[in-house]
């Protein structure tokens, strides 16, 4: 949904959690997963239906890294910055990704092609440095290989 025209999807997810305020984060995760971002209107709807202050909903939407208040690109790039990947050179890989895509972590490029995030550990430390794109893990990425990996995504 570009902007929310109706709240059916949001309401369905809230109902699936029995409208419980303590499930607020779980509800927002489900909406984020389905919609890829949280429009302002969705936050207001959640606040109303669960009877929790909008300030609390907004704080949650901005406090936790899983949520995005802006639309994301077609391809999600996650660069692992965990300690094991770090000691194997992840910062250089990140620099290269930033140079090639023109965006910083947390941003989406103007064509809505790539969104870039750093993640703290994907648990694939034997393959470090690791980049995950659209759920697919690319291991043993070097600065030299990064360009090849990114080129394969249209």
């Amino acid at each position: 949904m570009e902007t929310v025209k109706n709240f059916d999807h949001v309401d369905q997810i809230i109902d699936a959690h029995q409208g419980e305020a303590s499930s607020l984060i779980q509800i927002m995760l489900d909406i984020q997963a389905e919609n890829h971002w949280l429009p302002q209107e969705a936050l207001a709807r959640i606040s109303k239906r669960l009877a929790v202050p909008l300030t609390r909903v907004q704080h949650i939407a901005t406090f936790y890294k899983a949520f995005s208040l802006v639309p994301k690109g077609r391809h999600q790039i996650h660069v692992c910055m965990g300690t094991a990947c770090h000691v194997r050179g992840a910062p250089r890989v990140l620099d290269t990704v930033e140079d090639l895509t023109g965006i910083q972590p947390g941003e989406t490029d103007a064509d809505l092609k790539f969104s870039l995030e750093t993640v703290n550990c994907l648990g694939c430390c034997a393959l470090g440095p690791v980049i995950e794109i659209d759920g697919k893990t690319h291991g043993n990425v070097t600065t030299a290989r990064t360009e090849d990996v990114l080129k394969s995504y249209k």
Partner: protein
Amino acid sequence: MPRLSTVEELTEFRQELVATREANRPCVAICAGAGCLASGASEVIAAFKAELAAQGLEAEIDTRGTGCPGFCERGPVVVLHPEGICYLQVKPDDVPEIVAQSLKGSKVVERLLYADPATGERAIHESDIPFYQHQERTLLSSNILIDSRSIDDYLAIGGYTALVKALFEMGPEAVLEEVKQSTLRGRGGAGFPAGRKWEGSRNAPDTPRYVLVNADEGDPGAFMDRALLEGNPHAVLEGLMIGGFTIGAQEGYIYVRQEYPLAVKNVLHAITQAEAYGLLGQDILGSGFDFTIKVHKGAGAFVCGESTALMTALEGRVGEPRPKYVRSNIKGLWGKPTVLNNVETWANVPHIVNRGADWFTRTGTEHSKGTKIFSLVGKIRNTGLVEVPMGMPLQDIIYDIGGGIPGGKKFKAVQTGGPSGGCLPEEMLHLEVGFDELTAAGSMMGSGGMIVMDEDNCMVDVARYFINFLTEESCGKCLPCREGLRQMHRILTRICEGNGRAGDIDTLEELSEVLTEASLCGLGQSAANPFISTLRYFRAEYEAHIEQKRCPALACKGLISYWIDPEKCKACLICMKRCPSQGIEGGKKQIHVIDQEKCDRCGVCFEVCPEKFSAVVKLSGEPVPESLPMAERTLVRGSGK
């Protein structure tokens, strides 16, 4: 799916399972943990299924995707049962040969076996591989035996016998006593005695009570809990149920980080199966004990691994910790008595119930009993998960199990305890792993991350990395952590960029005191540890950065220069083509020269220069030599130039 309403029904069902599964029935077990899946394990599993079907063998030989056995460096890992032949780094193309040689025939495929790096000698069985031999795999050994999505597999290896024993033979007081006697200490980081925590909740007058699994596993580089939860979810459920029974809780929660989608999937599936079998729900096996388990996903916040922040997140709020002057086992979730323990702690419980505290205390040091799973990662040959008895010396873990440092590099430090821990140098390698031992040395056990570093890692950069991580993850509620980390991060970044000033170390030490003494929660209270421990053992590196503007490890971008040695350059053009800044001058017979103005210090030239030339050199703390004048840059063949 049968609903089991009594112990007798469960026992009978288990016996049937065991009877229909011949001990010697051939089975191909392929690790289906997240790491091996990332290396192509699902294609290998599919290849086996296809090949066995093509050979008409699918009725005789099972194919099973299993939990993570830990040898992640060599995944995908395949074990053939019943022989126990272990093949490593298996690709789909290898599968027809394996089927032909080892399943239809009785030969081994040598090139896929483990080879000793020194002698080249091959190890055929899982049990012959040194990586496994030196471990004590109480918790991890089951993983390769079961399909993580099969409750029947878990029951067949004796799963849920501890629950039955607790419910029907022991009762809550006897279980509590056993856990207390075992002196099991929390495996999540703090190492608090689990029995004492449980007792506090059991005796608290308030109800209802809750038991929680902390599966947030936020320490970067640690993935033990992922392997346990993904690989053997029922073991964790069983431990949780026993804990709930002991303290008088009817509800359990598992808080899993959402970055582990496979673990979430597998544990939800396990809960559904347990409910269908009547092992969760009302009046479990006729015991009168009611228990349900819910799963909550994290939403990307390291601070939610802190126990009070986790509980606040479970209540549907931002993960801001609460002051701990009243312990959460008395006033925790919703202000009620709550026992929160780590995944690995819970996984130990069924073993302690089944085998007893005496068995458990036979392993370990005086104050740290049992085994610990470490994620051995970084600059190490055998990256993976290792389970060792407490008290094993660090050097045994790193060299005997880990295989030492690859690439002929020299060991520099081992980091334990995640962002709350510290770095230990070579002179501490004799240290026996244990809670108090690691803390006394200036590090800590933490959740079990063990990151090995070599001569190419800069310890000032390591401190900066952890402080940066914590600055991003701080909840921001309390002043010492929010602002103290801001200032420490700024200073350490300056130092790594070559702008260190006299007095920086003193300021960092003062800020460390404020963080340690005045922060609201464990994140802030331990945040200065990476700096304090690296300063303690590697002070000379800090001084070199600040006083000489030199990075001894040649790692900090702001303090190094790349230079091509004209004596070694063979004008092969490779670095020229790969330089992203087009910053290298030269040509077909013209030795290459890096334009220092354009150089970004990305390191690509260093990476791509052929090893036999090794012409690219990193310099630090010294000026780059003058470039040869153009006239002298012509490469003359055979001149040795």
